[in-house]
């Protein structure tokens, strides 16, 4: 698994390097009727603008993600959806949702959002017991306690940290420097907890690579399966710009809530 990951990243970088070649121009350029130089004012903020100093790299990673999604990720997800009954898929989604409540809990507490923390705690308590270890989301169905949405990126935002440069992460997609940091922190907390749980329940050793990687793989597939976004389906030639803007707006909304 580790080797596969290395191989994948290597392929990515070869691809990205390949993208960098300058296009060959054959005939001399003739200025456009509506030239950028005349119609785009550098001192004006446009609605579509975003702080994106790493844009050339980001655009390449975006392309890599689209290709990876198309040829690796989605085919795996489709196979997963084909093989497993919908009910089982739902159970897996609920199971991981229950595990990742730890992110909601810690970050609700860090932002003193006690109602959210209590809701999350209640959800975990109900879903882990009545919901058979998290397989059924009883809390939502029976009690109408819906899942919160907090993470460390939002916590950092809550304390006034701006998003920093926009960043497209390989495979994971749109992010920014603050939220990438948040993601790393949340992942560490999550893995520590899962390690403890594996140890506690006696399902295996926390150092068991196969178990850990399988969990991660299923988690990733489940997440992708529940994400309707498809690359280049917006039908816009400016999808990169639109997604960037919408991502940043969405994060802003999440922080404010």
């Amino acid at each position: 698994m580790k080797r596969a990951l290395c191989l994948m990243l290597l392929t990515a970088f070869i691809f990205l390097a390949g993208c960098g070649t300058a296009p060959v121009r054959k005939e001399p350029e003739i200025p456009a009727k509506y030239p950028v130089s005349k119609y785009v004012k550098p001192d004006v903020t446009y609605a579509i603008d975003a702080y994106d100093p790493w844009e050339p790299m980001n655009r390449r990673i975006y392309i890599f993600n689209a290709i990876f999604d198309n040829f690796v990720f989605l085919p795996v997800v489709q196979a997963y959806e084909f093989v497993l009954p919908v009910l089982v898929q739902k159970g897996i989604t609920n199971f991981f949702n229950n595990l990742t409540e730890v992110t909601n809990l810690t970050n609700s507490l860090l932002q003193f959002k006690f109602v959210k923390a209590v809701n999350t705690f209640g959800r975990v308590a109900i879903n882990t017991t009545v919901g058979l270890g998290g397989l059924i989301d009883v809390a939502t169905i029976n009690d109408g306690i819906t899942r919160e949405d907090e993470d460390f990126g939002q916590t950092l935002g809550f304390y006034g940290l701006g998003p920093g440069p926009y960043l497209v992460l390989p495979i994971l997609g749109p992010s920014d420097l603050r939220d990438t940091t948040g993601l790393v922190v949340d992942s560490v907390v999550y893995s520590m907890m899962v390690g403890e749980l594996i140890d506690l329940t006696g399902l295996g050793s926390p150092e068991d690579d196969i178990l850990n990687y399988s969990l991660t793989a299923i988690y990733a597939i489940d997440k992708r399966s529940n994400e309707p976004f498809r690359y280049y389906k917006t039908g816009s030639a400016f999808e990169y710009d639109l997604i960037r803007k919408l991502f940043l707006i969405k994060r802003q909304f999440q922080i404010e809530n």
Partner: protein
Amino acid sequence: MKRHVLVLIFAVIVGFSGTQAAAYDYKVDDPYAATIVGTPDVLEWKVPEKIDYELLGLKVFPDRPTPDVFWYQREFLYTLSYQKQEAPLIFVIAGTGSSFYSSSMIFLQKAFWGAGFHVICLSSPTQMNFITMASATCVPGNIVEDSQDLYRVMNLAWQQVKNRIKVSEFYLTGYSLGGSQSAFVSKLDEEKRVFNFKKVCMINPAVSLYTSAKILDDMLLEIMPNGYSPEVFDRWFDERIAKFGEIYRMMKHPQLDHDFLYDAYRVLHKKGQTPRKENMAGMIGTVFRLASSTMIFTADVMANYGLIVPKNRVLGSADSLTDYFKVANRISFIDYFNDFLYPYSQSRNPGLTKEALIEGTSLRSIEPYLRNTPKIILMDNEDDLILTPEDLSFLKDVFGARAKIYPRGGHCGNMTFKDNVAHLINFFKN
């Protein structure tokens, strides 16, 4: 009870029978809100939640190179949903800038399939995939040429699937610009006779592409009365975003797509906050501008015309397009018509006047055909935003009893409403 009495009196006065007088239940009486909000879930025609469909691809112009900047466009894409038994095949044409992935198209696909038809969904000739892969000129807007392009892909699609499905007869429909194109495609079919369409339904068509585009262009001016200004737009946009922020919490699964603005708006409407007219016009105008800016940029690159991108510049797959986006956003459809489509058409067809081009992209140019072809029907709304009063009278006059005009719905806002879909399906079924 009082209301029932009123309805009864009304029925007597107008001389309708009781059932005909039954109120039209689509309640959104503001055409702007209707256009944005659409139909509440509970009042929608019930369609199957999930259906099987195939995503198919065609190489329409196999020898045409694709510029690197459109590297992700490889084939012309369309969808097929089919029945196991013999059934009629319906072609559905999307509205301006929309693909078969748009929510309206997916809805129609499900509704028709659920009613027992084979369905082929086609993106609009103004949509990026169509322009790059299936347009002969790559410069959309001339409805006669666009309809020839449509006919070509319909023919190729049929060749691709005909051995697998049993088709009894062929039908055709489309909404908005796709509705207008349906008429032209139907007329073309009278000569070519590939399909011999038995039934055609035009849903909320534009009578004149030029007029309707101008109406939609001008909606942006409601928020920028002194002309397009990026500063004013940015301020307006920020205010809207702040507003959406308030209601974001109420959105269950916000999607990052073109429908995002509409979805957010829907939530606001549900809260009972009546939005101001200029803001609603601004939103419709923004969505239209997003679609037209992609269309203009794509056509410009494909035809190497030099409208926004310098002529002969080769854009790479990872080049920043942000600046071109900014320029494309300030170009209206009418600018595109005057500075690109018209001169481009004229260069290939000397002697073509602008008036002739405008007239040629209007349903008025095929009025005798529409008037004398009983297989074509119309579904429209009294308050359709893209029609002038003259356009509406024209449609009523030409279609007469073949026109079903609803009192409300704005532009396509009631397209998924149960009564509308029932009428549509009933027409194709009987």
